[in-house]
């Protein structure tokens, strides 16, 4: 069962500008963009707990370019976390077309025996959106057909992708921190990030999404480190105002 990593909540909270309203007792958080606001929304229970622990009556989240407000109230701290029951995962899986013949798209790489369990897992789960990416150059090297579909790409193109070309820079920094904090954890870690789906991030026509994935680090027989990523949730969003 994939639980949200507490650092995800802390990360999004730490990136917000905070303004306390002493009259109403409300904390108003200004998120950097809609993706961060969605990240906080996904951590609703944790944000509500954080809000209670600081004595706020409730917490409001706003972001540039929209007049909406996400409201986090104390009762939410008691609610079941949406990602603790795999509802997203089930929902994602249930809407997928079945893939009749399991197959993988493989880029140029040197395959060693220690990575064969990854291949077995991918071939045994063709409906899952799984990709193997080499850490040192962020090159995506093996992926399932379902993963290519999620990226709105054909497999041959998707397998040549580099993470840097698609992710927002600040999320790449967050990923580096997650490697340092959780890289050694056997069960891996979960991360929510903003990235394009189909085209590199500097292409103004690219489709954008907020992705949540579970990563497990893998090492090959030469000691090269890879991350095995499995998509848990993807929400399409409009292009962020600032793309770096």
């Amino acid at each position, binding site marked *: 069962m994939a639980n949200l990593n507490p650092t995800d909540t802390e990360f999004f909270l730490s990136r917000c500008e905070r303004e306390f309203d002493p009259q109403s007792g409300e904390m108003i958080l200004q998120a950097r963009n809609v993706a961060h606001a*969605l990240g906080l*929304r*996904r951590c*609703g*229970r944790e944000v509500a707990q954080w809000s209670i622990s600081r004595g706020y009556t409730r917490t409001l989240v706003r972001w540039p370019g929209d007049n*909406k*407000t*996400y*409201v*986090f*109230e104390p*009762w*939410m701290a008691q*609610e*079941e*976390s*949406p990602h603790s*029951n*795999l*509802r997203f995962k*089930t*929902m994602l899986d249930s*809407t997928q077309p079945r893939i009749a013949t399991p197959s993988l798209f493989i880029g140029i790489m040197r395959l060693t025996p220690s990575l064969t369990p990854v291949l077995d897992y991918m071939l045994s789960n063709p409906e899952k959106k799984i990709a193997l990416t080499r850490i040192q150059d962020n090159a995506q090297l093996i992926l399932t057909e379902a993963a290519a579909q999620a990226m709105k790409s054909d497999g041959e193109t998707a397998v040549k992708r580099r993470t840097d070309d698609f992710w927002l820079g600040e999320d790449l920094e967050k990923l580096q921190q997650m490697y340092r904090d959780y890289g050694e954890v056997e069960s891996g870690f979960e991360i929510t990030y903003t990235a394009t789906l189909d085209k590199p991030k500097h292409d103004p026509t690219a489709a954008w999404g*907020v992705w949540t994935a579970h990563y497990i680090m893998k090492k090959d027989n030469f000691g090269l480190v890879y991350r095995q990523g499995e998509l848990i949730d993807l*929400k399409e*969003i409009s292009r962020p105002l600032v793309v770096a």
Partner: protein
Amino acid sequence: MPRKKGVPYVRDALKERHAFSITRKAYDGFKRLAASLGVPMSAVLEAVGRGELFVSKNPQTFEELIATWDLEELASDAFIPYERLLAIVRDKEQPNTDELIGLAASLQMEPLGLRNLIKRRNGNGEPQPNGH
């Protein structure tokens, strides 16, 4: 009252033509509202104007609240997958906190008020099994 040629007669009065301008969004929402009530748009206006139908800022039911919304548009606005929104609206599944926060923001409601409205729809204030 005598029937005037070419002008429909409604109950105790004759219909007249009146022109006013509204946005496309409001027009589409109004069209959906009339469809949900099963009457023509003019009949809704007629009923509102006669004080037979009340427009409230505090909707009493969840269905009333979303009557003017295009569900695909609402799903996109609230960042909820369309299929999931259909399950909440048509299959009466309970939204989780994430979905509730998103829906409340789009519908300009307090999350607790929205939750209560949805729970009331499901009867006894009890959540429905989510089916997953």
